[in-house]
């Protein structure tokens, strides 16, 4: 049928169109699959090349293996930590400590940031009074507070939680504040007309509208929480990945430093994945942006 000459009469064209379309759709799908595979292969190749170059250069002393270590040694280090534990205890325990501190600090920082951000966004008086002080505190390089927290709260988890909190609080606060300020005025007016009290407007209009703002900051701020915990551990601790870094550094074990970094990166990526998952569940009401991928 497809070999028949196409008649000039346009009425026949719609008959032929679907067939052509499916052929094209298939071709397009195949091309998309190929492209995906190509991208994946290129990624793996890039990693392999970089790791191989590193390994070879270190082995042939082009770069100093003592300073730069090499992938095989780092891998051995991770395997050794996993199999025989670290000097401070099992690797799982170190990860757990760091995660626990980061998560705890993150939760406190997020709760405080959201609560205060929404409150200041809704209550003009509070915003006017506290605004300048919050700006000043935000201008401080807060990471330098970490040593002070070690002095205040000791070598245990409390000092790391505190450094995580101060790092997490501000980005979350500013986003929640902005989110509360930029609520669609129509939605607020509509809720008020429908009989919502001030409290209801805050809880049922302002908070839900601000969630997308808040969630943006949650991604960034979990990274900050990990930084806070790690820096705290690095300065002084009895457990944790940060301590692993500082202990490896103290024994001139560069492979250990890199291995700790790898472990940390994996932990951060897993946490990020969990957060994205939670976000998808929470934002079912939002239109799916077809342009957003990954």
């Amino acid at each position, binding site marked *: 049928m497809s070999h028949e000459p196409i008649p000039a009469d346009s009425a026949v064209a719609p008959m032929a169109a679907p067939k052509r379309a499916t052929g094209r759709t298939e071709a397009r799908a195949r091309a998309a699959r190929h492209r995906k595979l190509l991208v994946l292969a290129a990624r793996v190749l890039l990693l392999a090349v970089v790791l191989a170059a590193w390994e070879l250069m270190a082995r042939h002393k082009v770069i100093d293996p003592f300073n730069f270590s090499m992938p095989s040694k780092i891998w051995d280090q991770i395997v050794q930590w996993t199999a025989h534990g670290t000097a401070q205890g099992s690797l799982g325990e170190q990860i757990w400590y760091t995660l626990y501190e980061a998560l705890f600090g993150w939760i406190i920082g997020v709760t405080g940031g959201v609560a205060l951000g929404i409150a200041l966004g809704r209550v003009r008086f509070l915003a006017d009074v506290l605004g300048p002080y919050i700006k000043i505190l935000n201008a401080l390089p807060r990471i330098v507070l970490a040593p002070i927290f070690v002095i205040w709260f000791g070598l245990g988890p409390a000092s790391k939680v505190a450094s995580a909190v101060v790092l997490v609080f501000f980005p979350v606060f500013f986003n929640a504040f902005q989110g509360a300020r930029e609520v*669609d005025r*129509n939605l607020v*007016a*509509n809720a008020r007309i*429908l*009989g919502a009290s001030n409290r209801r407007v805050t809880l049922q209009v302002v908070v*839900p509208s601000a969630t997308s703002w808040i969630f943006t900051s949650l991604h960034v701020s979990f990274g900050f929480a990990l930084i806070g915990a790690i820096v705290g551990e690095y300065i002084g601790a009895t457990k944790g990945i940060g301590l692993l870094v500082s202990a490896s550094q103290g024994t001139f074990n560069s492979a250990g430093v890199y291995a700790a970094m790898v472990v940390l990166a994996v932990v951060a990526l897993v946490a990020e994945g969990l957060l994205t998952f939670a976000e998808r569940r929470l934002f079912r*009401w939002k239109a799916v942006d077809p342009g957003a991928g990954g």
Partner: protein
Amino acid sequence: MNSGTLDTTHSGTPPGRNPAIELRGASKVFRTPSGAEHTAVRDLDLTVGRGEFVAVVGPTGCGKSTTLTLVSGLEEPTEGEVLIGGDPVTGIRPEVGFVFQQDAVFPWRTVLSNVMAGPRFRGVPKAEARERALDWLGRVGLAAFADRYPHQLSGGQRKRVALAQTFVGDPSILLMDEPFSALDVQTRALMSDELLELWGGGQPGGTAASVVFVTHDLEEAIALADKVVVMTAGPATVKEVFPVRLPRPRKVESIRLEAEFVEIYREIWSSLGEEVRITRERGADRVA
């Protein structure tokens, strides 16, 4: 304080005692962020009878919407008085419904939950609110969409949600701020017909709401209203009031072809057109 929701006495009062809405010399001055004063509404007198459908037309941005926010209690007049049923407006009242120009349904709530919002805010028990919401969803033809989120609906469907959300509160005062201006022409005509049906006014002995319908579309105004109020170029004040004595029930698509409609249109446009021209010239000045 919220007990007025279920109170139906407003519809029982004989018409003519107190007008449903009355603005007396109302003015509204806003302070712009730069500190300058902007008069949106100046010395406005307007009366809306019980069960009357009043359309307010005027040039774009002249202050029509401000008039509605004054009646709704969202804003207070800088000067003058706004009365509902003879009482001064001091805040948001349960018998007032407001349909906004932009989408104002809550995007994180389902359609059903959106329609339930008003009764729930006013303390109606969940089961009853649900029942009333489902009833209104049926009337606006969205019964099958109760579980959807607003972003899954078309613009016209979202507007229907907004209508149900407003009508579920059984308002005796209905304020509408260019509610259909964002819709395409066909949907618009359809929605106008549906609005007239939901409103159910014009029948003798009816208990329909008193409506103030702001629009810049004169055809829409005449097709819907009992009375068309022409506003001046901003600051807005009433220029002229035209009664529309077309018989009800009306169908907006067919009514605009009738000779009487065209005649009224011509008459009102001669008044409105002048204000539109003034606004346009000002706009041109501002651009230049």
